[in-house]
Each structure stands twice: as C-alpha cells, then as structure tokens.
C-alpha cells in the first residue's frame, strides 16, 4: 500500500481551507464550523491512531473495554447534543446511551464471537473498528429518532391530549407519531443498503481494497457490516423510541412535556 506523507495530507487540507475562504463572506458562521470540524477530525483521528497502535501492541480486554466505554460515552453525548428538545436530567443522556449499549454492544459482541471468530475475540484490530461503525450509525439513527419524537410530541401536544381525553391509552395517542419517528431513524440505513455498490462504494470496503485486499473478500466484509449496522441501528432506534415514549408520559398516562428542555 502506498503510504501518505504529511505533505499529501496538507494538500488535502488546503481544499477545506479553500472552501472556508470561499464561503466566508456569504456564510460566515458555517465557514468557522467547517474549520473547527476539520481540525477536530485531524486531532481526533491522530489520537485514535496512536491509541490503536498502542492497543495492537498490547492486546488486553481491559484496554479494549475502556476504549469501548469512552466511545459509548461520547456517542451518548452526541445523541443528546443533536436534540433541540431533550429530556431533562439524567434521561437526556441516559436514553441514548442505554439504547446504544443494548444494541451496538451486544451486536458487536455477537459479531466478534460468532461471525468473525478470531482468537481472542476482543482482538482490537477487529473489535474497535466494528464497534466504531456500529456505534456511529446507531448514534445517527437514535439522534434522528429522538429529535423527531420530542419535536413531534411538542408540536402535536393538543392532538395527543385530545386522544387521551377520549380514553385512548398513551400508546394509542402517539401511535401515528411513533410510526414516523421510527421511520426517520431507519430510513437512512435502508437507503444506504439500497444504494450500496450502485451509487456508493461503502467506506470500509474501499479501505480494504486500497489496502490490497481481494475485492470479493472486501465485499463479504462489507455485506456483513451492513447487516450488523442495520441490526444495531434498528434495534437501537426501537429501544430509544420505546424509552422516549415511556418518559413522555407518567404513570397516569399524562403527557409530560414539562420533562423536556429546549436547547
């Protein structure tokens, strides 16, 4: 594989800089965000590169687990930060983290032990990228779904209460919203699967091919990953919607929008 020099990266970075300068006058806020995000990418990826290097040299379940926990904590924060109206208190953070934990973690574990079957199963070369891809996609789906859920409940509060007043249960009163919310979380995954290979060549497969892997082997890995991501994001969204709906109502099936905070 051809390795990249610092110069190669600097040339690519110039492109981002050029975009920021071009957009500066018309979209001043966005240009700044662009540069900050680009800087974050460079710093965060460099750090994880060093962490992975150390991890590969020193295979230990403890270190892999610790890194996984940090990834989960950050993903939980991202889910929370992407919501305009979010649950107050520990729930705002907890719903996302819990949903991602039960879906992404168990599916990553299942894939490592049953599907990949490397010895030891926590070999960081497999475990960390796999968990990262699962968490990243699950995070996006859960964030979309929860944002849609709280926003819809807020906008349609009078309709929800009208149904409660007619003696409908909380579940019936939000059934329509629930359909759309779950859909908004899962549609990106369905689209990604539908376009895979025809429009987009997924990143992991591309990476393996660049690294010299035979295309058919890379494709097999990619198909597995797509299915795992679908499971992770789908079950994660199911759990998040379920927890979110439960938290929207109290034990007397009252709509409790006072539990939401606006950010």
């Amino acid at each position, binding site marked *: 594989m051809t390795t990249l020099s610092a110069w190669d990266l600097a040339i690519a970075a110039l492109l981002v800089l050029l975009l920021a300068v071009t957009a500066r006058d018309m979209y001043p806020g966005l240009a700044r965000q662009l540069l900050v995000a680009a800087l974050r990418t460079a710093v965060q990826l460099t750090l994880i590169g060093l962490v992975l290097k150390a991890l590969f040299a020193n295979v230990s379940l403890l270190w892999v687990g610790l890194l996984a926990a940090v990834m989960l904590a950050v993903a939980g924060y991202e889910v929370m930060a992407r919501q305009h109206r979010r649950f107050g208190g520990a729930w705002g953070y907890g719903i996302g983290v819990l949903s991602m934990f039960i879906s992404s973690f168990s599916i990553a574990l299942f894939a490592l032990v049953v599907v990949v079957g490397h010895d030891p199963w926590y070999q960081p070369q497999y475990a960390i990228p796999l968990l990262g891809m699962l968490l990243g996609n699950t995070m996006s789906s859960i964030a979309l779904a929860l944002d849609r859920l709280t926003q819809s409940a807020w906008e349609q509060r009078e309709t929800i*209460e*009208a149904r*409660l*007043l007619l*003696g409908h249960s909380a579940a019936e009163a939000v059934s329509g919203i629930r359909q759309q919310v779950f859909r908004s979380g899962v549609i990106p995954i369905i689209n990604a699967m539908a376009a895979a290979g025809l429009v987009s060549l997924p990143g992991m497969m591309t990476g393996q091919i660049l690294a010299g892997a035979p295309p058919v082997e890379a494709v097999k890995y990619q198909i597995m990953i797509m299915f795992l991501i679908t499971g992770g994001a789908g079950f994660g969204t199911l759990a998040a919607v379920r927890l979110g709906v439960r938290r929207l109502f109290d034990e007397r*099936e*009252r709509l409790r929008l006072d539990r939401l905070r606006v950010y």
Partner: protein
Amino acid sequence: MFEVESLRSGGRPPVSFRLQAGERVCLWGPSGCGKTRLLRALVDLDPSEGAVSLKGTRREQVPAALWRRRVALLPAESRWWAATVGEHFADPGAVPFARLGLDPQAADWSVERLSSGERQRLALLRVLAGRPEVLLLDEPTANLDAASSERVEALIGQYLADSGAACLWVSHDREQRRRLCARSLAMNAEGELAA
C-alpha cells in the same frame, strides 16, 4: 355521585364540590381564573392533589384511560387526527349526526373541510359516543348560532336524562346558565369556588 374534595393543581387554591346523578351544574368566572385548569385536573390530564371519586371509586383505583372515558372532558378546541370524520368514531353508523343538524353522511367528510361550528358539534357527538358518566363541557356552544346551540342543549339534556350522567358546564352566558342549570358554581379570579 361525583365528589371532589380539596382538589389542588398548579398552585391554585383547593376546590371542593359534588355533582348528583343526572344533575347539571354551570361553572363560570372571569377569563384566566382556572376553569379549564380545573377541568383538566378532574380528568387527571394535569397532576393534582386531593380526592376525586366517582360512585365511591377514587380515581387512583381506576386506570387513567378508563377514568377519562368515565369522566369525559369536551375541550373548547377539538382536534382531529385521521383523514375522515368517521375514523374518529368506534361505530360511525350509530352516531346521530342529524340530531345536531349535520348531514347523516358526515362520517365520510374530510376533517380538512370542517367549519369551526361543525367541529364543535362533531366533537360533542364524539365524546357522547363514549357514554361518559360525568360530562365536563368547556363552553360547548361558543362557536354556534342560536339554532345549533338549541340542538346541542337539547341533545345533552336528553343524554343526561337517559343515562343519569352528571354534567359540569362552563358557560359565560348568563341566559344560558339560567336556562340550563338549577345550580351554578362561580370561580373568582383567584380560583376559589363559591356556590
């Protein structure tokens, strides 16, 4: 039959009153004094303290959804979530649309084209279809002309006589109160009730 004892919600003073079976009591008071808030607390839509019981059964003993079917609130503004009127009724064929001067085919109407008066009358039919034992009405004739108001009053009167349900009727119209209610409850600006 319907007993409310020291009911408190949202920092308002405690409220107590009773309704007899088949009785219709009017509630009135200045705008913003807490009438709607009281009705919402009675159906347990807002958290509240105090004892509310129906025929000796306290509200905590009944699942919330069932309580709201037995003690039904008709809010001032109605909401319609499905495409047609009929989808909001369990049995659209049994709804007496004509009794309120509506087209007998009203079940097929699209909710988009309903006027505010039609919505108000249909919302009353919708709440009566649940056969509530206590009927809480928040200005049920506010958007209606005289003829429609008369039909609404007659239909509610007959429902109460047939079912023995009790009714608390919020009305700003002194004539209407005199006409409909032998007993009235007045709420002052602080939210206190007086007979």
